[in-house]
């Protein structure tokens, strides 16, 4: 009897083991493998992304995510060929301006019904508008950037200038006056790298309501009226009339002017807010810098072109991919990504987390409080815009800011260039 029982126990154990193995095998077989193309490139953000993916993979054995790194400047080409070839990754990290075209071409999935309510509710409707095309949401917005003034606080103090506050930001008029005051003895008030000025000009133009592109019925109309002219004219006059902006720096990139800023050759520089990362890593020891609140025209509004997380229409695992996106962009994780890139989280709660975990509290408060100033602009989603920007707008703005053409010439070039670009295939 004992022998019989022993044999029975062995059979039972073997059956249990076999069943367990079979179950493990089937669950392994059933595991969904998602690919995730991302262009994160700052070491801090790369590390944050890898750690988020690793923690997801550890806690979700049935949905495994693999990162595919792409450099930021090639993401469009990579995605286009992969879409056409049918080999696109399931999850795609891109930006609102780029996904507009892909949405129109039908390559991106409509996420409207897939987005969980908590994620939807954590981001303001104004930002959701930037990723909504024909009533379809094809990307989840994550991080955004503003253009801000970075100031050498020692030079401001020396000149007796009080820094603006969140409640009392500088107007363009005040900024212009301060720049003049800070210009003396071969040093300039402002170093502004305007090698590719289009994005900065168009984003800041919204301070005076300049939108450049307007919807009229079913067509898009380009306008270069008083609202659009205000900011480029102010910039031009600061360089050539007031001479408070270093003309030599105008031909450089944003990061190209940092050596002069760090050396005290100019008291202020206008940069994308992400440049705070460069300030932290590269400024000389003891250099006292601060990021000032966004400038005010009639408003402080700036154009939103958020980084986005989308899903390929070809993906066979859309619900699983959305689960991962929701995890990637929960408050804590979005805060980690924002901290790595020094960009503004679209989720205000994530912004609070970043600000409360940093040494650079003041500048992060300035950055995260800007989340309310973002507005949608039509040009972000125009398929012909990238071509107009590179072929027409950038050369025209550069010529104007280098004082080679007049404001009316600028307007004519921008307008005729848009007619040409938008009418050609």
């Amino acid at each position, binding site marked *: 009897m004992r022998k019989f029982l022993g044999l029975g126990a062995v059979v039972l154990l073997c059956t249990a083991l076999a069943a367990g193995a079979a179950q493990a095998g089937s669950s392994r077989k059933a595991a969904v493998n998602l*690919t995730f193309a991302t262009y994160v*490139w*700052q*070491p801090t953000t*790369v590390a944050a992304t890898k750690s988020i993916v690793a923690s997801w993979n550890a806690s979700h054995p049935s949905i495994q995510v*693999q*990162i*595919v*790194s*792409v*450099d*930021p*400047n*090639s993401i469009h*080409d*990579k995605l286009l*060929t*992969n879409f*056409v*070839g*049918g*080999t696109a*990754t399931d999850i795609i990290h891109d930006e609102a301006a780029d996904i507009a075209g892909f949405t129109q071409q039908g390559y991106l999935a409509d996420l409207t019904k897939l987005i969980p309510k908590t994620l939807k509710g954590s981001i303001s409707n104004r930002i959701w508008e930037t990723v909504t095309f024909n009533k379809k949401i094809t990307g989840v917005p994550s991080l955004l950037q503003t253009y801000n003034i970075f100031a050498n606080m020692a030079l401001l103090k020396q000149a007796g200038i009080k820094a603006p506050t969140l409640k009392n930001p500088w107007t363009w008029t005040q900024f212009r006056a301060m720049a003049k005051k800070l210009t003396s003895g071969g040093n300039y008030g402002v170093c502004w790298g305007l*090698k*590719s000025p289009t*994005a900065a000009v168009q984003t800041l133009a919204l301070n005076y309501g300049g939108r450049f592109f307007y919807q009229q019925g079913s067509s898009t109309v380009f306008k270069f009226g008083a609202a659009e002219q205000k900011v480029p004219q102010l910039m031009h006059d600061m360089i050539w009339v007031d001479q408070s902006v270093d003309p030599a720096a105008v031909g450089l*990139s*944003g*990061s190209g002017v*940092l*050596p*002069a800023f*760090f*050396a005290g*050759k100019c008291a202020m520089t206008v940069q*994308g807010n*992400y*440049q705070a990362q*460069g300030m932290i*890593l*590269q*400024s*000389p*020891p003891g250099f006292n810098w601060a990021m000032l609140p966004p400038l005010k025209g009639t408003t402080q509004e700036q154009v939103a072109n958020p980084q986005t997380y989308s899903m390929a229409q070809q993906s066979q695992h859309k619900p699983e991919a959305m689960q991962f996106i929701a995890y990637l962009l929960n408050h804590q994780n979005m805060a980690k990504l924002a901290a790595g890139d020094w960009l503004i989280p679209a989720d205000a709660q994530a912004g609070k987390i970043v600000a409360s975990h940093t040494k650079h509290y003041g500048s992060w408060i300035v950055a995260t409080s800007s989340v309310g100033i973002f507005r949608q602009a039509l040009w972000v989603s125009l398929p012909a815009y990238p071509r107009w920007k590179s072929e027409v707008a950038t050369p025209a703005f550069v010529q104007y800011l280098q004082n080679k053409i007049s404001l009316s010439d600028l307007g004519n070039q921008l307008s005729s260039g848009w007619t040409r670009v938008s009418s050609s295939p």
Partner: protein
Amino acid sequence: MIVSSRPRVARTGQYALLACYLIFLAFPLLWLLSVSFKGPRELVALHPSIIPSDATLENYREAFTQNGILHSALNSLKVATLTALLTTLVGLPAAYVLARRKGLVSRIGLGWILLSQMFPLILIIIPLFLLLRRLHLTDSHTGLVLVYMVWALPFILWMLQSYVRSIPRDIEEAATADGATRLQILVGIIAPLLAPGIVVTLLFAFVTAWNEFFFALVLLQTPSLTTLPLKLAQFVGIEGVVRLGPLAASALVATIPSLLLFTVIQRWLTRGLMSGAVKG
């Protein structure tokens, strides 16, 4: 006896000019070397110096540990070596036929080679991608090597056939009279005489594949297959912001194989080029 100092002055002047020219040529490499040892703060100094004031290996550490440059370099080495060998292997007999066979096919072949060089890359990338996908060759080094071969072959054929033409036919006719087969002629006589051409071909194919970016970007997906140019591009971020230190360190690593190859082959290449110059 009075010796004129003119030739000595002229020679000194020549050497001085040569030294200036060499410095001019080497300066970008020297600058790259200097930048690769500079810390982030020194990289934005208003008055940069060629010798780092506070040299650091941090850029190399970052390139090797965080960015996996070594693994990508090995991938590139594998792909470039295979491309160089296979392209030369295919190109040599083809070039021989194009050079020696007179007729319509040869003329059309050469014309087609020239024409194929005129297609812009962007025009062929999507059809090529679709073709490779059908053959299950996307996201693999095999597919990439095949594409590089096809891409490099026209120029290599054109180059090699001109080398073949420079070899007198009499040598082959003498060998034929001695009973050598066409294959024996190609392997035993033509190939050794073509040594400089083959070396140039190998170098060209290797460097083309080593530096190529766009095909690799489009075709490769799996991170472990990434080649070096793709890794280097990842140091350049949005709006032209660059991680200059690690980029310089990685770029320097990327130039080493080509430099070594040229150094090793250079003497042999020159000897090969000169070997047919003098009769006797």
